[in-house]
């Protein structure tokens, strides 16, 4: 946002207080505010914007305190008269009355600022004239009451009951001539206001305008706005501008109407104009959903010139804003006007397609494209939905059991559970659970959290279940009347059929449909995978690399598909996944029990077997093998089953404390590389190293057991290790910073427990800690993580390991800013991480 502080500050003598849209080209956002800047920009680009003027931010300080200065008011009156002349209308009279909207527009948008007042300028004469020119008394009454309601609420601060009273006047309008309806209506509003706020409703349009402008400036100092500026340290003297603009009517002349259009299809991202048009309607009708508009495709047949004009304007707007836009427009007597233009909301898939298309159309650069999609949207695209064929088959086979109200979108299959506590248990046992309840209450929250989907028999789309499910982003169907729940027998009955707990169901949280059995799923990424891949390649072009850790062949294949730049494994995890952790445990147990000369070759063989398949699935990717973590906490659970009560063998807690086992693992890796035919070199990494001597010893082990064709790396887990980093970097081929372990070591918390969030969350809630160590990089760590100096550290690759901890943006940003370009994340986050890291790098590189 442009925050230039040289705002035009009109002084009393010189002074231009008011800038028509077509005369404000030289002023910046600091003066015109965000809204005003947009209008000026569109006007100067020749786009059809209803004319108007801006009172710049420089006027705010004076107007917020006092009444409007006389010379300002005189300028405003002049500008309104000019508008009226230009439109061949009259402000406050007939035969064609000029109505205006009044809005606030600060350089930085903020909550608590005055919203729009529409239809300002109606007095008795204007009401009658408007009725005469539109031939529609009911419309004029409606227009007036809308204005009266907004004005009473925003400017006069009237309460709900007053607003409701005004609202109700709509319903008891007599069907009589305009003279008999409108003046009494205006009088009734005025009376209601006088009774409620002790101030009559101003029927002088100039007074309406003066009060509205003053209200805009005063809203700058509303409690909410001040609180917001305090929080974000936005200067209080920045001020807001006021925008006054001519109203246009969608029910004047022919053709006339109003609508909303997207410059591209917001569902798919296809480059076709998408939208609707309500013939002879006013803006609010479309938004309020009180009338049903027609799709633009239907309008194109009836009024081809309007749709063609809209298409032309859409193209111009995209040239101007270089993005997909959402346009509110009105056609008055055959002329198209743009009422509001903003960047259009879009589905995740559309976001990707549009970003890539805009690059192909040379409207934006790849570095901009990657900022147009959020990491969350990338995650959404990866979410499963029913395969179209499976869905069709289910319908054909009459597996559609019932239809409720779709309350939160998403398509999932799972097993039914009717009790929230059992839902938690089943989910913990790895079952996808669909919680089926009559209704839900806050008590059911833990069960809802554990479920993949929620169905209720009662309630509408505003029920507790619906609100909570949407907040949790879980598919949810509510108000499914065909469904009864027999909680005592754990049975769901749907249209007479019984489904005992554990029956498979599939639910569509958008359509509200419930199907018997489970349905095969697909993902958006399967369809637009190529576009996602291009986008992420652009993100990678910023020079960052994302690694991930796998423990099976399938995980490795998925990681490669998601574009991981490197793959890591930890040998204890690989052994566990292969069902061979017992080997490690037995050997350790034997050593602990004091058996001399324990045979460690079984470990070598197990590592060889478990690694070979994974290595064979890899291609050219860098591959990092981390030796098993032999610390007692980690393996004692398995060991305890085998040799209860044993003490740990000495040295398990030291990185090279059991050299025989490190050697066995190194040989296992060597064998696997040979058998798999992996081109190498691969990297062998040991965690917890703090001294160059350890690293030298590790290199020697590798040289002896593997030969030259292996790289050696250290993972740092303590401040001691960080302090040794520059020295280690001269010796090692790679160094990874275990961010979670580093944080845990600073707090002296157990590494593993730091992620089991329940306890720490409760602790934070009690304010026993001021900062969440998972979300922010601790100060001590900040001071001790060295900034990367590539010259000094030569060939050593440096990385940050965030596996097992999601990736908080602030954490990524800290390391990125310190020069780290390689990150390891959990498998399901590879794509989102590639995007996020690319975005941050692109932002930092931006001029």
């Amino acid at each position, binding site marked *: 946002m442009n925050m230039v502080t040289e705002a035009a500050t009109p002084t009393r003598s010189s002074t231009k207080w008011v800038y028509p849209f077509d005369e404000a080209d030289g002023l910046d956002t600091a003066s015109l505010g965000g809204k005003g800047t947009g209008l000026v920009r569109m006007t100067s680009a020749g786009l059809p914007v209803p004319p108007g003027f801006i009172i710049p931010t420089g006027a705010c300080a004076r107007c917020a305190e006092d009444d409007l200065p006389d010379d300002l008011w005189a300028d405003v009156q002049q500008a309104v008269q000019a508008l009226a002349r230009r439109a061949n209308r009259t402000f406050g009279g007939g035969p064609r009355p000029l109505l205006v909207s009044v809005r606030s527009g600060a350089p930085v948008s903020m909550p608590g600022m005055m919203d729009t007042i529409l239809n300002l300028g109606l007095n008795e004469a204007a009401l009658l004239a408007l009725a005469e020119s539109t031939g529609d008394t009911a419309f004029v009454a409606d227009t007036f009451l809308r204005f009266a309601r907004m004005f009473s609420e925003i400017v006069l601060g009237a309460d709900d009951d007053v607003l409701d009273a005004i609202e109700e006047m709509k319903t008891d309008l007599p069907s009589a001539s305009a003279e008999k309806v409108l003046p009494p209506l205006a009088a009734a509003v005025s009376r209601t206001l006088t009774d409620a706020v002790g101030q009559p409703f101003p029927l002088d349009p100039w007074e309406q305008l003066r009060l509205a402008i003053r209200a805009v400036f005063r809203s700058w100092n509303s409690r909410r706005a001040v609180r917001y500026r305090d*929080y974000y340290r936005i200067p209080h003297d920045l001020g807001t501008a006021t925008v006054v603009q001519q109203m246009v009517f969608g029910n004047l002349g022919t053709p006339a109407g109003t609508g909303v259009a997207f410059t591209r299809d917001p569902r798919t991202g296809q480059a076709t104009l998408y939208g609707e048009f309500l013939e002879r309607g006013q803006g609010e009708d479309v938004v309020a959903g009180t009338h049903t508009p027609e799709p633009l495709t239907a309008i194109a047949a009836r009024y081809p010139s309007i749709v063609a004009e809209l298409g032309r304007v859409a193209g111009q707007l995209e040239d101007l804003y270089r993005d997909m836009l959402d346009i509110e427009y009105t056609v008055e007597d055959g002329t198209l006007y743009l009422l509001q233009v903003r960047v259009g909301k879009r589905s995740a898939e559309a976001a990707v397609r549009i970003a890539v298309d805009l690059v192909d159309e040379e409207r934006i650069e790849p570095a901009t494209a990657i900022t147009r999609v959020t990491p969350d949207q990338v995650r959404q695209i990866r979410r499963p939905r029913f395969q179209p064929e499976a869905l069709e088959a289910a319908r054909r086979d009459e597996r559609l059991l019932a239809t409720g109200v779709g309350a939160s979108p998403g398509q999932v299959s799972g097993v039914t559970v009717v009790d929230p506590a059992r839902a938690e248990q089943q989910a913990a046992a790895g079952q996808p659970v669909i919680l089926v309840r009559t209704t839900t209450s*806050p008590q059911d*929250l833990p069960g809802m*959290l554990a479920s993949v989907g929620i169905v209720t028999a009662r309630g509408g789309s505003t029920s507790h279940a619906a609100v909570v499910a949407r*907040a949790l982003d879980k598919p949810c169907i509510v108000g499914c009347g065909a469904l009864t729940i027999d909680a005592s027998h754990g049975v769901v009955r749907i249209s007479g059929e019984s489904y005992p707990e554990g029956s498979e169901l599939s639910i569509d949280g958008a359509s509200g449909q419930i199907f018997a059995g489970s349905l095969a799923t697909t993902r958006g990424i399967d369809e637009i995978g190529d576009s996602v891949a291009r986008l992420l390649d652009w993100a990678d072009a910023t020079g960052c690399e994302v690694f991930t850790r796998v423990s099976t062949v399938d995980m490795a294949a998925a990681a490669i598909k998601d574009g991981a730049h490197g793959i890591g494994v930890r040998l204890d995890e690989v052994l566990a996944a292969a069902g061979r952790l017992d080997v490690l445990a037995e050997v350790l147990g034997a050593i602990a029990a004091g058996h001399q000369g324990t045979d460690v070759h079984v470990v070598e063989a197990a590592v060889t077997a478990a690694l070979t398949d994974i290595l064979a699935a890899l291609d050219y990717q860098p591959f990092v093998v981390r030796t098993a973590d032999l610390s007692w906490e980690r393996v004692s659970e398995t060991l305890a089953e085998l040799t209860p009560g044993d003490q740990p063998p000495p040295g398990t807690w030291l990185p090279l404390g059991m050299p025989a086992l490190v050697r066995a693992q190194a040989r296992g890796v060597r064998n696997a590389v040979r058998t798999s035919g992996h081109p190498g070199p691969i990297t062998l990494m040991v965690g917890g190293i703090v001294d160059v001597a350890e690293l030298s010893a590790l290199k020697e082990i590798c040289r002896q057991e593997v030969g030259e064709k292996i790289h050696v790396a250290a993972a740092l887990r303590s401040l001691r290790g960080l302090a040794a980093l520059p020295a280690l970097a001269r010796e090692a081929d790679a160094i990874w910073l275990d961010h979670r372990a580093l944080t845990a070591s600073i707090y002296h918390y157990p590494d593993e427990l730091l992620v089991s969030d*329940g*306890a720490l969350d409760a602790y934070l*809630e*009690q304010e026993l800690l001021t900062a969440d160590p998972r979300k922010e990089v601790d100060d001590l760590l900040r001071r001790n993580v060295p900034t990367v100096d590539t010259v000094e550290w030569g060939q050593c690759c440096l990385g940050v390991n965030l596996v097992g901890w999601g990736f908080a943006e602030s954490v990524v940003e800290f390391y990125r800013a310190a020069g780290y370009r390689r990150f390891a994340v959990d498998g399901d986050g590879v794509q989102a991480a590639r995007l996020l890291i690319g975005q941050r790098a692109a932002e930092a590189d931006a001029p």
Partner: protein
Amino acid sequence: MTMLDEDAFLALNALYLKKMATTGDLAEISGLPCNQVQAMVGSFVERGWLLDMGGDLVIQTDGMAQVQDYYRETYSSLSQREDMRKWYARFQQINTQFIKHVTDWQQTEGDSKVQDRVITTVERLVKLIGEIEQLVPRYTGYIRRFERSSSAVDQGNRDFVCTPTVDSLHNIWFEFHEDFLAVLDRPRDT
């Protein structure tokens, strides 16, 4: 059986309305110091009023009875008053609006105009609560929570609109509604 004192009621009522919460939640909601709440929770557990499931507290039947007794004893004079019934009628009006706005907010993916309406409606309720604050002084606690969470929303922390796992506006509203119904001694119509 003696009735709860006010502090004990504040802590236990917070759990009564939330059904499941941590000690930290109860302190936050009741506005009482953490160590005091911790001590009270200990004695509640001993009396079987609540269950401690590894930090998550769950209210038990006896605990609920305690809270309900307090409501009945303390507010019986209020529940019959005409002005309270009228007040509730006004509350119901903005309650309908609030629920609609929250739903709109979710369905428009957090549209900023709709978000403004959510907060304006909360501000209206805060004003409305102000009118009965003298009759139920502890309702200032709701005002405090509403203001804190509104600020959080304004600062861009959108979870505070209606995410069930934080002290969101929707949660506070829901709890206030339950609380007021208990004061009026009315069952909630579902």
